[in-house]
């Protein structure tokens, strides 16, 4: 689904229905994804681990980005910290190449520009407000592709242990309210997640992590 969506959308999307074809929202800056080794999230609905992608946002004055808008200094900082940079035009991204899209936009103050989002965000204009819908399924397919192709390193067992420790702490905190029926439900869900987390890791990365090291 995500592949189709990417193929069908132009790099500069003008399908938004705003005044004179502009999205009624302030312009923002494009960004570049990167991945930190410890950046993993638990998806409770899909019962799986998914990588969390950080962003270097080209905001002038942020992390070394100067008046010329070049994100090179901020990208260099991320690289120095050992993070994996995922440039939008990286050929390894295959069908997910050029993950950034822009909409022509105009702020309430009349400032025109571009509003940058990922391929998985679709705007709807409601009066003066813009509502965004996320294609979570498509985005997770993109993330899965990054893992499958080795663009993102597999989740290490040490990272899993850290996450499990936080999950265990959470269960213990909740258990202090064990008499409360609302918390009993939460405790059950937290315990189920705790079990699922290790199982999912074994299924997704068991054996892979050792090879990577």
């Amino acid at each position, binding site marked *: 689904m995500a592949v189709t969506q990417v193929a069908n959308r132009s790099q500069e999307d003008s399908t938004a229905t705003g005044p004179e074809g502009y999205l009624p929202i302030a312009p923002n800056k494009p960004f570049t994804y990167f991945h930190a080794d410890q950046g993993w999230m638990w998806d409770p609905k899909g019962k799986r681990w998914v990588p969390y992608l950080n962003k270097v946002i080209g905001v002038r*004055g942020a992390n070394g980005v100067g008046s010329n808008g070049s994100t090179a200094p901020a990208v260099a900082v991320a690289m120095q910290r050992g993070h994996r940079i995922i440039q939008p035009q990286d050929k390894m991204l295959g069908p997910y190449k050029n993950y950034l899209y822009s909409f022509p936009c105009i702020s309430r103050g009349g400032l025109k520009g571009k509003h940058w989002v990922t391929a998985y965000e679709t705007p709807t204009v409601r009066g003066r407000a813009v509502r965004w819908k996320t294609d979570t399924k498509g985005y997770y397919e993109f993330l899965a592709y990054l893992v499958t192709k080795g663009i993102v390193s597999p989740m290490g067992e040490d990272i899993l242990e850290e996450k499990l420790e936080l999950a265990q702490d959470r269960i213990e905190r909740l258990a202090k309210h064990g008499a409360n029926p609302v918390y009993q439900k939460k405790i059950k869900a937290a315990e189920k997640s705790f079990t699922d987390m290790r199982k999912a890791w074994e299924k997704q990365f068991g054996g892979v992590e050792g090879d990577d090291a």
Partner: protein
Amino acid sequence: MANEILYSSIGDLTVAELLHKELQLLLHDPTDLRSTMTEVSFTPSGSTALKIGQIKPDDVMTAPGEDTDPGNTALTDDSYLLTIAQYRLIRAVSDLAQVVGIDGTVDIAKLASLMKMSADRTLMTILTSLFASLSNTVGTTTVNLDVDDIYDAMFQLTASLAQPPFNCVLYPVQFTDFQGSLRGETGATQFTGPTNDMLALKGTGFKGSWNGVDFWADNSVPTANAGADSAGAMYSQACFAYTEADIVAALGQHTMRFEAPDGLKILVEEERDGRKGRTDLIGHYYPAVSEALDGAGVAILTDR
């Protein structure tokens, strides 16, 4: 009875509506997060970039035994860059608008004083954009923030050796989710709302404290996971550093300007275009914010 003088019958003597002298503000975000960051003074030195060196001060000593050389211990060092960027905001007001404008509506001095709020918002937007760069994360994607996410963030920071007090800046929806979750909490830990003294100390937009953590809600908190989540953050003061180049000191004496309140480093100049009958008000601001210590912050990823 006839010919009564009614409001509805003297249309030539009344106006449909009268513009009130008071100008009220539309919804906006006045949050000022300067107090959550480390301020670095900007000294003009021939570059827009300041490099700030960092060292690890507490290498443990060795005890190799009597008459044994313990060897040298290298200094663990790091650095970060603060590169100022040129920001401007222009308000162009025609003479006609000023001539017919009632006092206080299109008042040049008032517009100039509002530049401070624009500069504040600019700095906050730069800061919050960096939440998306923090390596450590807590929270559950597409699930509402709850008290346990805040505990997770505190534990993560403590494990990373970040020094309290911690500041927590959330997207407004994340903050309301937190408030909702607090309703179910029991025990001695209470949320303390902001007092006037605390607002004066911590800045506008401060929401209160809980468990030793100060809370803010800011509308510029970035999205995460393709817009499904917000990337709020909890961090110690050492996590982010900011600077503001003193444009007032550099140019103020040569430019017609309005006084910036609280010694803020914003230059507001007035440019007159007599041929067009227009006055331009130009605000200049040179800020920079950087992640000084990545480990001293943690992103809180929960449903937006």
